């Protein structure tokens, strides 16, 4: 892992200190990172989800994009919002979340803040 990706992993662990965070190195300096056991609230089935991202060796200049979550995620009473599509994460079925950051500011915007924002967006979408 590059020092920048290693630092991002540390920040994610600190931000989601109540959750399990797992990672696999990608062999080029990046890492596949997954945060488990996130609570989406009563509006979702299942209520708990995971969020994952692939930080590449271009981080932190590069945006943290796309993001992934459970394959079988449903919203109670209405369909999921836009920017969600069927995909795979590390060979298993997943839902891709396509939330890009226009005007990403390297060093100010971080992987941890992006995951927090995406989780918030998912809850409110």
């Amino acid at each position: 892992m590059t020092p920048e990706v290693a630092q991002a992993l540390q920040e994610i662990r600190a931000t989601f200190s109540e959750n399990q965070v797992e990672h696999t190195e990608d062999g080029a300096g990046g890492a596949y990172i997954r945060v488990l056991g996130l609570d989406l609230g009563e509006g979702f089935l299942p209520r708990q989800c995971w969020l994952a991202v692939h930080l590449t060796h271009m981080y932190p200049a590069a945006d943290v994009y796309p993001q992934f979550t459970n394959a079988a995620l449903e919203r109670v009473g209405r369909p999921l919002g836009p920017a969600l599509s069927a995909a795979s994460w590390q060979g298993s079925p997943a839902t891709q979340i396509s939330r890009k950051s226009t005007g990403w500011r390297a060093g100010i915007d971080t992987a941890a803040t992006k995951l927090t924002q995406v989780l918030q967006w998912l809850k409110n979408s």
Partner: protein
Amino acid sequence: MAQEQLKPWVVVSRSSDWKRLEKHLFQADGHEHGAVLCCGVDKANRRLIVRHVLLAKDASDFVQHGYSYRLEPAFISRALTKCKNEGLSYIAVHNHGGHGSVAFSRTDLASHERGYPALLSILSGPPVGALVFAHDAVAGDIWEPAGRAVVESMVVCGARRQEFFPCQLPMRAMLPEEVNEAFEAQVHLLGARGQALLGRLQVAVVGAGGAGSMILQALTHLGVGGLVSVDPDRLERSNRPRVVYATPDDEPTSRRMGTLKVDIAKRGARIVCPDMPFETYPLSVDDPSAAAAVTRCDAIFLAADTAVARHVVNAISHQYLIPTFQVGAKAIPVGGRIDSAFAVARILGPDGLCMWCAGLIDSTKLQVDALPPEERAAAEYVPGVRQPSVYTMNAMSSALALNDFLFTFTGLQRSQDLGPREYDFLNRRALRTVLGKARRVCAECERRRGRADGLRLPIRWTPSAA
């Protein structure tokens, strides 16, 4: 104490920094003046890259003692702190009178012997040393833990490249007679000095497709000293007509893949200049070996249109102060008709553009380009639309960039303007490019400028890097 004589260094500066320093050193009073250069260290290529110029105030920072002048301890301490904080080399500077040749005085050398061992141990790593300037000349005495080295030359990069030596070199003597004859018509424009300079330059071309292959061909014809070609791609049938020197035999068949584009370029260069060194890197420029090869060049052409190539080359250009010439040609179809068609040439790096400041790199596209191919297709947020690409449009952007290279490097360019240039084909107009909205905070060019090896390049991570 006897010290080992090490390989010489070359000092590299932006034109804007050199102008500040030159104005400070060569004042109307005709006296000596002083400064410190805080330099990034390019260890592999023995280059000291100027990051900060600290001018010493006369009578307080730079004081006369008897017949000589010296930098005061408080000023030296401030400069050392700056160097130590950023891992930079400390280079003290002063001037002598005279023109065309210069050397340290015995007093100068004695002061180096007294002071530099202590400065070396304070910085614990980067070299320390001194430069002495006369008009059109520079000499250097650089101290390293392993020994001592002279400065071969100082290169000033900007609208007009300049190079200073300890004494004026007989440039005509550096140009072999047969080369002189082969490039006779060119020598009428560039002079023997300009042609000799071209013959010493190592040039990297990132991208060997439509524009890149043309640039490689043209640089071979100009008589540059050596080429580094970087491109991971193989020829496809759909791009064969645009790639210079490609033949139908290079196209992929059911039994074999297409020829590597870098190999096609090398084959073409061999026809024109059989002996010219030509290194091929069939890799993305974010591969460590390709990036290292680009980093040791005197100039870079960027003819690859990925965000990864833009980011990496932009970083190398600013970090190692390597003048970089970026080309692009685009036709934008809107609703079944061509809305605009243009060619553009941009100068990046020392006193030139930063692609981040100019809004020419999109962070999300950078991420998508950096993903492995199997993930990239799924992640693309703009559906993959094939952009039009036309030989003659590539030729225009390549010609603009090549002539920018030629006229800035040989010192023929009069204008100080390094702004981008654009040609609008539909309206048959040459334009100045309107830059994208500049970022309020550019995290890239300021922190990278002149840092050389002191900052990691955004390239693939290898176990050895760890």
